[in-house]
């Protein structure tokens, strides 16, 4: 099992969810986060003065998947979240040791 963390542009969320639904991914956790990468924030101008906004709003998606489907899920996220512009985000994949569905007690892939 793998744990996928994706940092994406907030306005791409619906596209990513629809694409993941199409390939049968049943669950997803979303958190509003702020951060910066190579995009290095942005400049906003109020009353003629420039303000550096260092931390930009992003969404953090987290989902657990069967090891066999990882490549497809990562590709799907990259395709649906991508705009081709700097600031599109990143996808990270981690090993996931165990999973339990609280209601039934199922474990491993059955719990996903």
């Amino acid at each position, binding site marked *: 099992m793998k744990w996928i963390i994706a940092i994406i542009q907030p306005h791409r969320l619906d596209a990513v969810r629809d694409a993941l639904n199409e390939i049968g991914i049943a669950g997803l956790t979303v958190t509003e986060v702020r951060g910066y990468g190579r995009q290095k924030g942005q400049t*906003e*101008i*109020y*009353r*003629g*003065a420039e*303000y*550096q*906004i260092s931390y930009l709003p992003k969404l953090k998606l987290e989902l657990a998947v069967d090891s066999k489907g990882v490549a497809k899920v990562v590709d799907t996220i990259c395709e649906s979240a991508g705009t081709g512009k700097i600031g599109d985000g990143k996808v990270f994949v981690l090993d996931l040791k165990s999973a339990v569905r609280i209601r039934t007690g199922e474990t491993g892939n059955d719990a996903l």
Partner: protein
Amino acid sequence: MVDSGDTAWILTSTALVLFMTLPGLALFYGGLVQAKNILSVLMQCIAIACLASVLWVVAGYSLAFSGGNALVGGLSKAFLAGVTRDGVVDGTGIPETLFIMFQMTFAIITPALIIGAYVERVKFSFVMLFSGLWLLVVYAPVTHWVWGGGWLANLGVLDFAGGIVVHITAGVSAAVVVWQLGARQGFPDQVRPPHAPWMVMVGAAMLWVGWFGFNAGSALAAGTDASMAMLVTHLSASAASLVWMCIDWVKFGKPSLVGLVTGTIAGLATITPASGFVGPAGGIGLGLAGGFLCYYAVDIVKSRFKLDDSLDVLAVHGVGGATGTLLAAVFASTALGGVGFADGMSMGSQFGVQVIGVVATIVWAAVASLLIVKVCQAVSGFRSSDEEIIEGLDFTSHGEKGYHF
């Protein structure tokens, strides 16, 4: 003899001018600060409103509008002594109780305007003590000079609704407070942007509508003067807004909302002293002048003077008020659609009187404010601690938070 039409209009105007502060100015300023300081700004506005109301009745009204000498009124109407239910203001058709209340709303908004200078870093106890003393020492005497039969009134100064009385006094005093208080942490490069630009627009729109009461109400009658004042006020606000929007657009590639509504306030402050004396051409002319001058004044105050007048009280109100006061002498000319000059007065001599009024007010507001700041520093404290500033004044000063997510 009370005139019911005049009285009805000034009753309405009084409500409009109070609405400028509560909640117009509070929201205008509140949106411009960081989220952790919104409540402190709202609190300062409403607390000053309450304090100024009581002080106005205790002594402010008397110091401004009762006899006295050329420099300050007397105390014969302290606690509204001698004011009766049936009293009518000489030369008008409105009850004195209404005049007291109408003028009280001006006494409320003027110290509240100064809030814009010291937001996000000042002790609340200072705000209260400073505002109270300032109302009695700066605002009431200058009001007496201009509107209460004092020396500027005797010279024939033109200030219809408070370019000198309200905007120059507030703008200059704001700069003096900031000079003593110091800048926000990180000024000028690292300060945080406005937390709610939409709120700034809502507040500015309330100020705009309320300003109809401020300027057209200053006619103290429901007639031709009030009607023209409302028209020119609206034109000046619109013209200055467009000027500000266009400069932003050309300079930065995008027309900004915060910029446009700042232009609105600049245009309103600029037309204020002239609003009863000029015609539509004057309204637009003053709006254009105020828009341009205030825009560049914002940059000059912050970049050249290095003064963290955080919400631009000097640049918008002080510069706008002074511009309108001086140009009133030009646009009052009948050739430009104005009402013309008093007997024996020409554009040149009127301009001279306006300069005297502006300079004298700047000097008095600056000197007196500095003394008041020194007194307050000793009594109430002044600047919040660095820890309080970092955590935000909402919680450290008032124990509340503006937003719970």
